[in-house]
């Protein structure tokens, strides 16, 4: 660190030091700010997951001894395996969590291609950076497509739906609920669908903006901007964001789909 503090003005503005002439935490300005942005984004996502934890545990869990065979009911919190059990093109086939698993692997794989692009950037290997950025963008679009299907299936619901009894004008009326919206859903308590929409929606928005950033990085790599600049640090910074999005999905996958 001491070597970066120098009185020679020509040495001050090399790529590594900040304007003060030192390099705090041994990281460039942009990278450190990206880390601080990510930690603040962690708080936002945690707020959603904390809310989920609070609401989830204030509702009864499904217990076969009390409730009998599992069916959708707004008396208890649904089991994720029973809700997310559909795969595109396989109508009526019970495939619990398979589709979510595919989505998880897509995101992990696009994270790997991102880190391969960063690695190629360190070596100033422009064609390889381009190649892996394209794979990462493809993975991002594939994930978004999967999520669009998942949402549309969740909103439309199953053929059976859930029959509920409600008090209308002093009389008990039976009614069948199909699919989900923010006020009611066929899977369980209204809060279940609300949290699904908010948590996966907020994550999906992050994936979408990540894809946009990746496209921008690919464009600037392809036009040779980073090659002329002499380093590929932008790939690294956007890579940090992309890995963060993958990391959030790991937590959403565990807490929303598995537990």
């Amino acid at each position, binding site marked *: 660190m001491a070597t970066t503090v120098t009185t020679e003005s020509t040495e001050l503005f090399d790529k590594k030091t900040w304007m003060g002439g030192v390099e705090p935490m041994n990281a460039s300005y942009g990278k450190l700010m990206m*880390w601080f942005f990510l*930690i603040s984004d962690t*708080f936002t996502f945690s707020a959603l997951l*904390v809310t989920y934890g609070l609401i989830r545990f204030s509702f009864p869990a499904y217990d076969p001894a009390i409730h009998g065979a599992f069916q959708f009911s707004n008396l208890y919190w649904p089991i994720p395996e029973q809700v997310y059990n559909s795969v595109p093109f396989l109508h009526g086939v019970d495939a619990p969590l398979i589709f979510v698993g595919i989505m998880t692997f897509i995101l992990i794989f696009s994270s*790997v291609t991102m880190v*391969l692009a960063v*690695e190629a950037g360190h070596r100033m290997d422009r064609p390889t950076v381009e190649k892996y950025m394209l794979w990462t963008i493809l993975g991002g679009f594939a994930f978004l497509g999967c999520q669009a299907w998942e949402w549309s299936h969740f909103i439309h619901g199953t053929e059976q739906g859930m029959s509920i009894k409600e008090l209308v004008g002093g009389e008990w009326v039976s009614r069948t609920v199909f699919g989900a919206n923010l006020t009611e859903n066929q899977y369980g308590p209204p809060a279940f669908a609300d949290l699904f929409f908010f948590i996966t929606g907020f994550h999906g928005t992050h994936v979408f903006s990540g894809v946009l950033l990746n496209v921008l990085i690919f464009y600037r790599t392809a036009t040779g901007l980073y090659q002329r600049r002499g380093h590929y640090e932008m790939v690294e910074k956007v890579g940090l964001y992309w890995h963060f999005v993958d990391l959030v999905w790991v937590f959403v996958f565990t807490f929303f789909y598995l537990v």
Partner: protein
Amino acid sequence: MSDHNHHADHAGTEVAPAQTKRIWQVFIILSAVTTVEFIIAFTIKSGYFKTSLFVGLTIVKAFYIVGEFMHLKHEVKGLIWAILLPTLFVCWLLLAMMLEGGSIFNLR
């Protein structure tokens, strides 16, 4: 290309060979942990044991993503703690609010 590597510094168009072994190792670890999570989801009865297994495996995955892919493991100690400490407090908040939710359930 490999016999030109020592010219890489001044040739401009030549690049060093790729160092991707560790990246693929981490990919295999992440995939294996996810597969194990799937197996657990369908074989072990739900309860505290299953939940703690899931949480433990999630932390393993988070460690590899943040440590290797995001390179935090190789940063200076100050940066590691700047990221880790706030996250630990968030974990405490999550646990506290889950316990609070259980208490709301008991009072209903």
